[in-house]
């Protein structure tokens, strides 16, 4: 028998069944519980399927720093913009990045002024583009968490093996367990559990959350993206809290293993080195970034191409930073749906389709 993976995990009756069970679990409790998701695809799924409306009052879901484009500070976008203004340069990127406002421009505005900025599906498409355009530099904007970083690493290895010397990456990859630890110890937040990311965990493995769950006492459930997955993940978290347990559990066992994907981990370790990196709203978190290792420096756009980058400025009134920490709901931002809309976004959280503000605008109003 073949499972239709897109449909069978969306059964409304199963979703409602879990909702009923969660209600029973928390019946009679007065202490509310708050769970954070740290993956933009979860953010979108929770809004899209109306998950919050199915949960009892005492069970609250908040969104954390799960949108890679959103947590990327303006300085990175400003550098990408400076690079795209150079002659004989093609900027390649995933779609979300194009509309993100930097300090004074965006890649989309630059494209309207003549810059060559192209959206690709895979970094391998960018390598192929470089091969076809040997007289140009093709720069890929390497943004993303552990799901995406191995793909970028794979593209660098492919370019290296194939002698494609005009392919470069402006890398700003981030790893998610560190900000989870930072936020879990923030007294203003009191996070009772994490809905752990699905595909990041396919790479790093569920074991990566053991410190959080077993040492810091924050229950962690690795959860899939379909509505039945999310409801089951929340039910498992509620159950841990009610039973006074804190451990790592895998709801998304069809994809995620305890040890993760060893080969992808090796590829990451081969191409990248761990570094400190800045998260919008949170600041610099030691050891939470990946930079291109010295061995592959020839592919590092930041090292190989000197440009003048403007002094980064944040946008006045934008609450993205607080939204990314789960401290401010998009609805509490004075700009939300007024000065800041998906058509004319002020902050990154409204640009990326998986940004908390964009999801709240599309599904939550």
């Amino acid at each position, binding site marked *: 028998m073949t499972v239709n993976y897109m449909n069978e995990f969306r059964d409304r009756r*199963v979703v409602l069944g879990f909702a009923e069970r969660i209600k029973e679990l928390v019946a009679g409790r007065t202490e509310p519980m708050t769970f954070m998701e740290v993956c933009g695809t979860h953010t979108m799924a929770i809004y899209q399927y109306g998950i919050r409306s199915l949960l009892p009052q005492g069970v609250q879901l908040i969104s954390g720093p799960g949108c890679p484009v959103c947590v990327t500070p303006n300085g990175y976008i400003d550098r990408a913009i400076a690079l795209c203004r150079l002659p004989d340069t093609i900027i390649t990127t995933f779609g979300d990045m194009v509309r993100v406002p930097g300090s004074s421009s965006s890649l989309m505005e630059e494209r309207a002024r003549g810059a060559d900025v192209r959206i690709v599906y*895979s970094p391998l498409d960018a390598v192929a583009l470089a091969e076809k355009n040997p007289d140009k530099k093709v720069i890929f904007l390497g943004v993303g968490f552990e799901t995406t970083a191995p793909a970028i690493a794979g593209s660098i290895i492919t370019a290296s093996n194939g002698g494609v010397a005009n392919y470069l990456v402006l890398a700003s990859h981030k790893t998610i367990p560190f900000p989870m630890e930072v936020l879990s110890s923030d007294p203003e937040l009191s996070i009772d559990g994490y809905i752990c990311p699905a*595909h990041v965990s396919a790479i790093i493995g569920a074991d990566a959350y053991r410190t959080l769950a077993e040492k810091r006492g924050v229950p962690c459930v690795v959860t899939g993206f379909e509505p039945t997955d999310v409801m089951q993940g929340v039910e498992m978290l509620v159950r841990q809290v009610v039973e006074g347990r804190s451990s790592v559990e895998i709801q998304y066992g069809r994809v995620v293993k305890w040890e993760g*994907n060893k080969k992808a981990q090796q590829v990451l370790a081969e191409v990248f080195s761990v570094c400190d990196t800045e998260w919008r709203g949170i600041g610099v978190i030691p050891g939470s970034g990946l930079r291109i290792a010295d061995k592959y420096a020839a592919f590092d756009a930041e090292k190989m191409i000197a440009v003048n980058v403007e002094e980064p400025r944040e946008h006045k009134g934008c609450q993205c930073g607080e939204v990314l920490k789960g401290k401010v709901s998009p609805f509490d931002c004075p700009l939300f749906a007024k000065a800041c809309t998906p058509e004319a976004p002020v902050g990154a959280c409204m640009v990326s389709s998986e940004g908390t503000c964009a999801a709240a605008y599309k599904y939550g109003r």
Partner: protein
Amino acid sequence: MCLGIPMQIKSIDGTDIVAEIDGVKRNASLMILDEEVQVGDYVIVHAGFAISKLDEKEALETLDLMRQAFPIEDI
């Protein structure tokens, strides 16, 4: 950005595969996958790379458990 699509492998040529979902075919790479796969298997495809093999047995078990917990007659 971390969206990955479960796609079925239609053909394999070295580390290059063609995978399909709902009639849409995509090229993808097996370069960062640590599991053996064959034509017919499902993989999660992200940004042109297969990042994980979908464990059909686990998927069926999860569905079975859900169905037992919340009896459904017609799926």
